[in-house]
């Protein structure tokens, strides 16, 4: 482990609750502190609505904190988003280019990766057809294949480790795991202890928008589960 590439200090994020003047704001994140070392695989645990997805979007640079501080070295952080910006009437090829551009790739980089996308998504001739004619499975395969083309310094994953039908689930899961264990820094949100243990080498526990604990996976998970009855009773 080396120096942190991203550090959050007492970060809070507030959303407008309603679209009217003087509407109250609610704090999706109240007070989160964590540090993400280069090459770390950080798991985020916490109950529904604790603010895990909001945290990922703060790390991705989509949400700016309303209080607290973020210190980050210049790295690219990308939320793994499937089928980002897809347009139903366009062909698979055009959607792959469009989505790739939105994910920050240059046009010629995407063009170079198109054969790989075509192969991985197993779309064959359908690649040139509008995606509105795709089955759900085909749509997911294309979305995943495009998303995997981006190689950010920090990969942010929200619950999705594999997609599609049984066969493609294995293939997509393998591809993503390979990426994760390839030295990429990863932040992974999941409800499943088994997955967190399998993927991550450290973890942070978020409760009601506050970071409660950061440390080794087993210790954090143990504390999290030990606190569960108390937290529920407190509600």
């Amino acid at each position, binding site marked *: 482990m080396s120096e942190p590439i991203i550090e959050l200090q007492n970060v809070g994020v*507030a959303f407008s609750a309603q679209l009217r003047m003087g509407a109250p704001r609610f704090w999706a994140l109240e007070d989160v502190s964590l540090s993400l070392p280069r090459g770390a695989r950080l798991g985020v645990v916490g109950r529904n609505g604790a603010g895990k997805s909001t945290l990922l979007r703060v790390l991705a640079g*989509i949400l700016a904190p309303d209080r607290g501080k973020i210190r980050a070295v210049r790295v690219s952080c990308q939320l793994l988003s499937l089928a*980002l910006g897809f*347009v139903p009437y366009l062909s698979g090829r055009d959607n792959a280019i469009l989505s790739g*551009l*939105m*994910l920050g790739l240059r046009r010629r980089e995407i063009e170079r990766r198109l054969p790989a996308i075509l192969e991985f998504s197993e779309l064959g001739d359908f690649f040139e057809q509008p995606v509105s004619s795709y089955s759900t499975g085909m749509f997911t395969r294309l979305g995943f294949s495009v998303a995997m083309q981006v190689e950010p310094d920090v990969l942010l994953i929200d619950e999705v480790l594999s997609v599609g039908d049984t066969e493609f689930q294995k293939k997509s899961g393998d591809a993503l795991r390979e990426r994760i264990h390839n030295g990429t820094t990863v932040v992974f949100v999941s409800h499943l202890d088994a997955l967190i243990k399998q993927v991550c080498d450290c973890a942070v526990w978020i409760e009601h928008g506050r970071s409660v604990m950061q440390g080794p996976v087993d210790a954090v998970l143990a504390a999290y589960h030990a606190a569960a009855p108390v937290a529920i009773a407190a509600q």
Partner: protein
Amino acid sequence: MRLYWLELILFSTYAELRAERARSYLGFLWWIIEPAMNMATYYLVFAVVLKTGQRDYVPFLLVGLTFWQWFKSGVSHGGLSIWQQLNLIRQVRLPLQVFPSVQILADTVKFAFILALLLVILWAYGYKPDVTYFALIPVLLVELVFTAAVAYLVGAMMPFVPDLRFVIEQVLQVVMFLSGVVFSLDSMPPDLRRWFELNPIVELIDAARDVLMYARWPDWWALGRVTLISFALFALGAYLIRRYTPRYVKLPT
């Protein structure tokens, strides 16, 4: 602006036009038929029924409508674009000026077809091309910047006040009648007309008519003034969009 933005804008424009073409039976024929029907309506009402007895009324009306519709569609599409893409904006960090720019460019491509059609009609009416046609280049560029400026400003506000979308069409309709598109502003007293000329659209349409109907060079001073206003508003619009970007993502879904 970075090259990457430009690639994104250009490809999105292509995607937008392509998707639009695929959404109807007649496809891109609508880019011509729809504005042509619109023009025919105005012609029928104002030239045939109301007998607006001005000389050269038909070319006057067609030039005005062509240049007006470009502005209008750019503003109404571009003004909505950021609001319509809020879900996308919540997932990925993008320079938001991309969205109105794409709409304006798509409308500009459609406008190019109408402009070509307009020129053919004018030639058929006997208004021949002239060396003053060169003045169309700055006129078109300035109108593009002005359209983008207004679209940016409306687009920057729309996510906060989506109710604007019910108002914008009506406002544009009123502005059209005040811009000398359908009625000539020449009949009003010069003192009053000067106030109307503060509206850049009046100057731009005047310039277009000077060139296309009278083979006259446009009023360069007026055009210069409109250029300044356009670039100033454009900078303001781009600034507002950049400044409000962090707040858009925190608006309620």
